[in-house]
């Protein structure tokens, strides 16, 4: 089922009358059966957006559509959604079985079918043997699976996950990431996955939305967002190691770096914020000369530090192409991998 947010806005007013705009004029259309990552730094309004879709928060303005139905004013229980909370919110006094059964007890489901569905769902998420345990007797990853099973057992139209992996250790996170992706594929359910971890979002999402201060920055597939960031914020938010940014002028059609012509570039002459990803540099004989400040070999890769217009810049190049004695290295980067952002708006000017 397609999910559409139209001009969604949420303003919190606290007791002293101070307003916080948690979400601002959000427009997103999520195609049926896709997994969309909702990505942004802490406090940018991800949970608020999710809770509005769930119906637990009332939007200040704007509309929410499930397919053709306007559900903006619908109570949460009527929306047919499954929600996995950040800390799972499993009922501590119920066994795993009863936790998963709980949503079905409120529906018009015959007992035998309910039990069958609980068992199926438990097997799907891989906790079939743990049905008699209490949540406190489970590890974080197992609790997480129970929470997903509980959200899915009533066959919701939409599955919402609020930072479901943030309480897990790094290794389990990788494993659960793939698990969630698998479950989503098998059930084909439209899913929104909230996270502040860009790597997690990039690896799990069909498409992702980047939010900053409640404002949508970009909505695209992970790869296209990575190669064509819409603005400086998105460029900086994605990628590890992070993108290098520095100021540079375009003079008479040439990008000027360290008072030299770096490259011919087709944008109006002006001062820009420049972004270059460390991994997009290549060490080649005919490249641009830079004075090495620091050099670190990390196995296959070598990290070179140098200055561009007074800013520290890092390049990640093949260890074979460089030696640690080099005081000067020659680097090149494709024009399509150089991002020029408008100083005022932050928008990219040479892409998209």
């Amino acid at each position, binding site marked *: 089922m397609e999910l559409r947010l139209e001009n969604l806005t949420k303003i919190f007013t606290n007791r002293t009358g101070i307003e916080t705009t948690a979400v601002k004029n959000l427009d997103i259309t999520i195609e049926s059966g896709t997994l969309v990552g909702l990505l942004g730094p802490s406090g940018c309004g991800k949970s608020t957006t999710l809770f509005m879709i*769930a*119906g*637990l928060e009332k939007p200040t303005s704007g509309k929410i559509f499930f397919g053709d139905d306007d559900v903006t004013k619908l*109570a*949460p*229980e*009527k*929306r047919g*959604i*499954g*929600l996995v*909370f950040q*800390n799972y*919110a499993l*009922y*501590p*006094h*119920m066994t795993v079985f009863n936790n998963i059964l*709980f*949503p079905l*007890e*409120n*529906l018009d489901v015959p007992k035998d079918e309910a039990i069958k569905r609980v068992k199926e769902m438990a097997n799907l998420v891989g906790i079939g043997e743990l049905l008699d345990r209490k949540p406190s007797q489970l590890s974080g990853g197992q609790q997480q699976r129970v929470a997903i099973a*509980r959200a899915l057992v*009533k066959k919701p139209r939409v599955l919402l996950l609020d930072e479901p992996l943030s309480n897990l250790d790094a290794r389990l996170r990788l494993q659960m990431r793939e698990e969630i992706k698998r479950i989503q594929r098998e059930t084909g359910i439209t899913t929104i996955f909230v996270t502040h971890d860009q790597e997690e979002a990039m690896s799990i999402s069909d498409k992702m939305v980047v939010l900053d201060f409640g404002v949508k920055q970009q909505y695209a597939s992970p790869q296209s967002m990575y190669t064509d960031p819409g603005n400086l914020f998105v460029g900086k938010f994605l990628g590890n190691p992070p993108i290098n940014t520095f100021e540079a002028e375009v003079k008479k059609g040439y990008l000027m770096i360290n008072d030299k012509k770096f490259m011919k570039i087709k944008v109006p002459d002006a001062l820009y914020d420049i972004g270059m990803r460390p991994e997009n540099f290549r060490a080649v004989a005919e490249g641009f000369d830079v004075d090495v400040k620091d050099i670190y070999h990390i196995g296959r890769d070598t990290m070179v530090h140098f200055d561009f217009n007074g800013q520290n810049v890092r390049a990640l190049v093949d260890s074979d192409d460089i030696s640690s004695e080099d005081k000067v290295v020659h680097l090149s980067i494709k024009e399509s991998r150089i991002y020029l952002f408008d100083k005022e708006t932050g928008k990219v000017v040479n892409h998209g």
Partner: protein
Amino acid sequence: MANLKNSVIAFFGKILNAIKTFFWNVRRLFTNIKNRFGDFLDKHNINFVTRFPNWAKALLYLSPALIVLMVFTFYPIINSFALVVYQNYNMTTETVTGYTIFGNFITVLTDESFIVPASHTASSAVINTLIIVFISVPISVLLALFIAAALNTIKPLKSFFQTIYFLPYVTNTIAIGLVFAYMFRTDGGLVNQFLGLFGVNVEGLSWVESGAVYWRSMFVLIFYSIWSTLAFKIMVFLTSIQGIDKQYYQAAAIDATPRGRIFSKITVPLISPMIFYILVTSVIGAFKIYNSIVALFGVSGAPAGVDYNLQSIVMYIYQFIDGSNAGNLSVAAAGSLILFAIILVLTLVQMQASKRRVHY
């Protein structure tokens, strides 16, 4: 004017600052002394922490409470075990005529008006007390639960209602009892006037005065004991309900859980340790009921001119200490031990029964 105000503010600000600085320095001084003392101990290899075993330290910290308990609780309990074996103990001369193991218990158990009702009535101290316990405790616990759950859902006027429900707790039992007695007066009492509005014939309908039948005065007593114990229970339940993570309710809302099921399947189990605590303490408290009866019916424990008595076990015991049978301490001790045994057994039964239902 503004100038004056500013200088006054500045003046008090300075004083406040001076006080803060003073306490800061006092704390520094103490830290200093403590550190030097520690250094001294270290230098001479004296280590209190390892020299004294843990139980000795525990005993030291517990000693204030222990001493109070010894004097006012343990000593009397031990003493009542001693008293209960005396025959015809005389308080003033401190003499006894002999010793007995069961004699005093038998005196109590066979006394008419303890277990067995006196010939002219159907009530006895034990029957009265059991009626009060088994009617007022369940009703008051359930009522407190519902009121607490309801209070938790309302937003406006919440603190107002909280205060209202809490008022009985801070009001004197005897005073409330007198007000209740007044409300239930035969002539012109609030209750009778109210019933009169609905066409009930209230002519001579007495509740706590002469002519009140047993169940009517018992009703007032139970009503009163429910109401006077409700405040504390509501407060405890409300506090524990407010401590429940909001996410459980959000999860339940998304799963279309009806209100009743949220209450019985989420709220109640999550505060079950508190419910159990309140249940046990209420049963104990109700078994020891005394104040309320005196407040409503006076020390005789009965409305004027009736042939039954509403006295409780504690009232029965008390008459041997400072009442109609004053001085017969051995019988009082036997009564207390019987009450103790009843409470102990009931508490053990409750603990056993709760094992499955209480989720810690």
